[in-house]
């Protein structure tokens, strides 16, 4: 009984600083400054549907590119000689530990009109191309910043696959490609699913990448929220309702992903 009390400070903390703030978001979304219930703010979010569509679309593209790039990488890493595997994984993951503002800034200097890419292209008589402040640059930034979150979970799941399962598949007549699709792929799906959420959630809610690489014209949901709280148009009610809609979108997508997860568990058994 006494030991149970040890978690009391934690429970109070989480209630005050996690639950209450979220309730406040909901309150601000549905009540105006006089305390009257209103659906106006939630309805106002509809004005920004183009920004929502753009955010979901760009985040989805970035997630797919991350998956396509990361999956083979994780597979090759898991196949490596165990002696160098740990070091190799560390090298691949290392950029993740750099502050993501600096990593995004790096692309700012690379893609600019006077950046190194355009300068090099200029030497062979091409360009300058407008690369910075485009949607492509935003997607590139998302891929670059978040790809470690895709590589890591997929690699972890792949490294855990029992070697004897792969050998059994070979003994039973599967060649390398068939083993990959029949054994490795289904077994790695949980890693893929967590990779997808770990990339998609920060990508859809970022405001740094869109601001630094997208210029002013490619606003995302994150920018919209930030503007309501710290920008010129201070409007916490609208900001709260946008946050609420963002959470609902993410919740829906996560539920969808969990659906897959349950099925995978059955496959694994």
């Amino acid at each position, binding site marked *: 009984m006494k*030991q*149970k*009390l*040890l*978690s009391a*400070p*934690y*429970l109070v*903390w*989480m209630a005050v*600083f*996690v639950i209450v*703030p979220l309730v406040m*978001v909901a309150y601000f979304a549905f009540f105006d400054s006089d305390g009257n219930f209103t659906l106006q703010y939630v309805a106002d979010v509809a004005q920004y549907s183009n920004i929502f569509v753009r955010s979901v679309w760009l985040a989805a593209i970035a997630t797919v590119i991350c998956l396509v*790039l990361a999956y083979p*990488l994780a597979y*090759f*890493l898991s*196949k490596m000689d165990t002696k160098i595997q*740990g070091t*190799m994984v560390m*090298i*691949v993951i*290392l950029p993740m*530990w*750099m*502050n*993501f*503002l*600096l*990593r*995004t*800034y*790096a692309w700012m*200097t690379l893609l600019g009109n*006077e*950046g*190194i890419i*355009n300068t*090099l292209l200029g030497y062979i008589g091409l360009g300058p191309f407008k690369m910075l402040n485009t949607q492509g640059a935003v997607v590139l930034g998302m891929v*670059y910043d978040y*790809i470690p979150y895709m590589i890591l979970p997929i690699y972890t799941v792949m490294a855990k696959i029992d070697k004897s399962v792969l050998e059994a598949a070979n003994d039973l007549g599967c060649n*390398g490609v068939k083993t990959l699709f029949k054994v490795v792929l289904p077994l790695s799906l949980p890693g893929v699913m967590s990779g997808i959420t770990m990339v998609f*959630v920060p990508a*859809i*809610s*970022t405001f*740094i990448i869109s601001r630094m690489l997208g210029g002013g014209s490619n606003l995302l949901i*994150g920018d919209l*929220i*930030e503007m309501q*709280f*710290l920008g010129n148009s201070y409007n*916490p009610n609208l*900001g*709260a309702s946008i*946050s609420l809609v*963002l*959470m609902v979108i*993410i919740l829906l997508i996560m539920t969808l992903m969990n659906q897959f997860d349950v099925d995978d568990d059955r496959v694994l058994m």
Partner: protein
Amino acid sequence: MKKLSKLYLGLMLLFLYLPILVLIVFSFNDSKSRSVFTGFTFEWYEKLFRNELIMTSLANTLIVAVVASLIATVLGTLAVIGISKMRKGPKAAVMQVTNIPIINPEIVTGVSMMLLFVFFAARMNLEFGFVTLIIAHITFDVPYVVLNVMPKYRQIDANMYEAAQDLGCGPVRAFFKVILPEIMPGIISGFLMAFTFSLDDFVVSYFTSGSTAQTLPITIYAMTRRKVSPEINALSTIIFVCVLVVLVLKNVIERRADKKRGVVR
């Protein structure tokens, strides 16, 4: 196949490292140009170390990260002990709440806490600054401590604790002699995780810091908003070298520990 995989790995490493390498090279560049290397200089490093704003925000970052991760570690470790004694239903509910700061987008965490702090600031004597910053950091740190300590605590043989008590230890002494050493690896990895997340955090700090207690990521953000500031390149280089050193050390230490364990077996 082997060649193909090596080629692919090489290309991916190029993609991951080239931008950082360019930053590093241009941190030694004589001019402010981002594309033409005109000559070698340490000027930007000197400017960086003489930049008071950067140095104070670095100090702020360290203070916030140390204080927040220490408090989070104590809070989280105590929580694990209490949570383990709970019945299934409440336990599941608490774990759901624990996951909220991890799953929620950072911007929502930041904005929701900002709303709370604004509410308190208007009614009580709360100012945006170190206090709000540390509270916010503890909040997103503590779930990682709980999640790291929980599995270690579960592995403990309940008989050990009872045996210690049978042998004359009080509950507190039994905790320090038996439980704590067992969950120590979880506590340490939880603390380190919390510490790194605190050091690196931008989004939550951005919404909860106010203008007085700026952390390094916030200062970096302000610098990137200005047109050209090669000091960022110098700063990136230093941070990259620090990360590299820490990770290599971690790798070496882990490998030694593995070897030792191998010998024991």
